[in-house]
């Protein structure tokens, strides 16, 4: 099975990714782009309608994992070791969140990833993430 199809199936088989209506927009070598539509159930600040940071974290984590799985050196699944997220601003209510993750280095045991989350204003990121992920022993 080709790597793209594997990564697509892998992510679509994740119940929590489905629960948050996440979709894969693009997969490349060590690169993944995913999005999550605006949904009133994911609101974290009721007075403004801004999406909860936790939902953005879940999308970033999934997108980072997908970029690891579709890296040429990856042999299968992965799990998060550590994830740091910086929140630059509130996402605009009503707009989808889009993330792009890049797995920029892989050793025998660890994959290093950075990712960005945006809404419609692509010049000003909503959040950035850096993460480390496990690499399955081949």
């Amino acid at each position, binding site marked *: 099975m080709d790597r793209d199809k594997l990564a697509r199936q892998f992510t679509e088989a994740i119940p929590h990714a489905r*629960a948050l209506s996440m979709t894969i927009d693009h997969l490349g070598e060590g690169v993944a782009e995913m999005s999550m539509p605006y949904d009133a159930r994911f609101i974290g600040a009721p007075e403004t309608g801004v999406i909860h940071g936790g939902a953005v974290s879940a999308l*970033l*984590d999934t997108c980072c994992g997908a970029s690891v799985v579709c890296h040429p050196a990856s042999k299968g699944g992965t799990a998060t070791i550590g994830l740091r997220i910086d929140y630059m601003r509130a996402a605009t209510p009503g707009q989808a969140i889009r993330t792009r993750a890049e797995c920029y280095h892989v050793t025998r045991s660890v994959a290093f990833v950075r990712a960005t989350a945006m809404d419609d204003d692509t010049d000003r990121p909503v959040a950035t993430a850096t993460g480390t992920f496990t690499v399955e022993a081949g």
Partner: protein
Amino acid sequence: MSEGSFVKPRGGRPEPVQVIKQRRDAALGALVHGVPYIQFLGIEFDRRGDELTAILPFDDKLIGNPLLPALHGGVTAAFLEVTAIIGLSWASLWEEIESGRIDAQTLVAGNLPRLPKTIDFTVDYLRTGLPRDAYARAKVNRSGRRYASVHVEAWQDNRARAFAQATGHFLMPRLEG
């Protein structure tokens, strides 16, 4: 020591313990149930005095790896972040309610305080999250007028074996008035 024994009598007469409990639980309930995403994940909070324990009852939609199966890393991060934000908000709200500056009834009526905003959040994944209930507690390491630093630990069957921990910085809401 029973609940309420620290409370200074209001208006000269000690309040019955049930009145105190009911007021505190109503305030906490309003804070937690006012946030749609907390409801979506199904997180509840157990209160013992001022100490909160967050509970994430297991649900199939929280699964990240159906083969193991294991909790989604994003669920774990979100659970920790919710616990940190509610823990931080509750700590400052507690003072306001106990001193009488905020009336719990106004909270229940929907006049909720703005929640702290996450500046950054760093999660350590220590073990696989198993397909069962999870618990978490937050410790506010510093809470200033503008910034706060909070540490959170989450566990499942065994309190001494955390499956994840996190540290985050938060921007405190501006006090009104």
